């Protein structure tokens, strides 16, 4: 196996996540797309960690921290989505434009 394969997979996953964040209007779907992007980064970290034949697995430690941050981010993000839904009866991010003007 070549290093370019997992890196290409990571790049494509990241691009799909970017499309999801830009195009979807459901706030929960946007959060899922962000998860997709974080996972693409994890693939990169793990692939490089293996490729350079580390003597200690620093890349995996980083990926572990990314997973933790993602968990915290999802918790807060979904709480905010719930709060917005309770106040405005919608989770369509086009309609949440309080800061627009």
């Amino acid at each position, binding site marked *: 196996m*070549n290093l*370019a394969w*997992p890196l290409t997979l990571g790049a494509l996953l990241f691009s799909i996540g970017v499309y999801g964040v830009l195009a979807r209007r459901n706030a929960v779907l946007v959060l*899922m797309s962000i998860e997709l992007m974080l996972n693409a980064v994890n693939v990169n970290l793990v692939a490089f960690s293996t490729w350079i034949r580390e003597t200690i*697995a620093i890349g995996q430690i980083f990926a*572990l921290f990314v997973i933790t941050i993602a968990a915290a981010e999802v918790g807060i993000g979904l709480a905010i989505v719930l709060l*917005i839904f309770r106040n405005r009866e919608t989770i369509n991010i086009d309609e949440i434009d309080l800061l627009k003007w």
Partner: protein
Amino acid sequence: MSETIVFLIAGPIALGSALFIIMSKNAVHSALWLILNLMALAVLFVDLDAQFLGVVQFIIYAGAIMVLFLFVIMLLGVTREELLGEAIPIQRVVSGILGVALAGTLVWILLNAYDESAFGSLAGANSAGNVQGLGRLLFSKYIFPFEVTSILLIVAAIGAMILARGRTEEESASEVERHSGEDVRL
């Protein structure tokens, strides 16, 4: 050789399920496709000599985080579909172009940096066991970030609890008093 075969199976599954996540109209379907995506990536991590990360990916993501997602989706109503009209006219087209452009650029850079050298293995770092190696690093060199992470998780948990908690009756009564006459919105 065997890791190449595993990659060729798990990689396309991860890509395909990622496409289904952003394409499907129903949020529950998206969540289920995301689970498949995370599982494929967990297989990939094990394939790349990161056994502990693969298991963690499986338990934390496909287990805990996806339950959270599904819970919120169900709470907000499964039948709620996205409106088909678009506020910004060509939003989907533009974001499609941007996504494809980003993917093209990244893949092009990768192909230019194509390296013939074979993939390594983590045999050195994993000689005493993958979990043992990670644990030793985490509790010695990276002890400070590790502890900071625990604080972050506590803050996130308390914050989520406070945000999602319903108002008590006294609070909403005083709220109405204060805002009487004006439009009470978030």
